[in-house]
């Protein structure tokens, strides 16, 4: 490991799974309001991942807020304020950075869902007799 990471690295957050560009995610962050603390959830699409596994690695999530306004938020992977990340689905993308979403709105900004086969579904498919 390089020496910069050796000193700065934290234990990786077990609640952050491996992310990929195009993933639909729910990011739970801890927010301090006055002396109260609460969890805020940011739901959107992973637009890019930065700096891999380094101490200052981050990922950017884009969502469309009310009135079709795009909102992007960048989260630090190693920040203790990021409570957990849930992956709600994957989409089919052919780029590592989905900057092209910025120029699109409405239907044009849709991404094709990637069909993932869950273990239960796989068994179901295998047992279905194929039509002759």
């Amino acid at each position: 490991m390089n020496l910069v990471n050796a000193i700065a690295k934290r234990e990786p957050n077990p609640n952050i799974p491996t992310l990929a560009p195009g993933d639909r995610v729910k990011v739970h962050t801890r927010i301090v309001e006055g002396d109260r603390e609460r969890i805020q959830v940011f739901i959107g699409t992973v637009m890019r991942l930065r700096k891999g596994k380094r101490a200052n690695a981050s990922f950017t999530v884009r969502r469309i807020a009310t009135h079709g306004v795009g909102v992007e938020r960048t989260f630090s992977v190693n920040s203790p304020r990021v409570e957990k990340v849930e992956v709600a689905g994957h989409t089919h993308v052919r780029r590592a950075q989905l900057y092209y979403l910025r120029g699109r709105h409405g239907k044009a900004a849709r991404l094709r869902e990637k069909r993932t086969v869950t273990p239960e579904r796989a068994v179901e498919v295998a047992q279905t007799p194929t039509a002759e």
Partner: protein
Amino acid sequence: MAEGLLGKKVGMTQIYTDKGEIIPVTVLQVGPCFVTQIKSPEKDGYSAIQMGMEETRHLNKPERGHLKQLPSLKYLREVRTGNIASFQVGQKLNVALFSAGDLVDVSGVSKGKGHAGVIKRHHFKGGKKTHGQSDRMRSPGSSGATTTPGRVLKGMRGAGQLGNKNATVLNMEVIRVDQERNLLAIKGTVPGTKDSLLFVRKARKEKKVVKAQPTGKKGK
């Protein structure tokens, strides 16, 4: 104990506090250093210790002879200290000297910027971009009056070499110490490039309390 140690700049990164705040830090490889020579008032006219860091294969015979049984050290630097009695030649000094929360001073040679103009070197404002002005955007303007005094006063700021000279940053906070790898994470930036030689010592001057500046009019 020694007052300071030799080190090298490794690079910069960020460290998160438990609250989630980000601290920008410079990572330094500090030591392990060896005391290579002790200068005494009787023999040398002043008291200091010479310390060395980083092993190398490329030493010439006089250098090897000077180090004798010690490891072949690449860098040797002298540090003035009053209590030479507490040191022995061959003594190993390491990063354990510092602990998190300490204040340290870091010296090194700053990055060279070459011959730089007054805007870059002294933060002059430069000339106007518009109003018919065409060729004095980065010029220093007037450097003095007329027949009296008839010369440019000494100390007038002008263009010249910028950087590549000794620089010391005072009162930097130690954020983290890694004794296993001899690493030090210090809040803020230090002079020089990666891999450049540095001297890290315990802070000498008391940290000034920064008073809130009254907000005045900005520029013209």
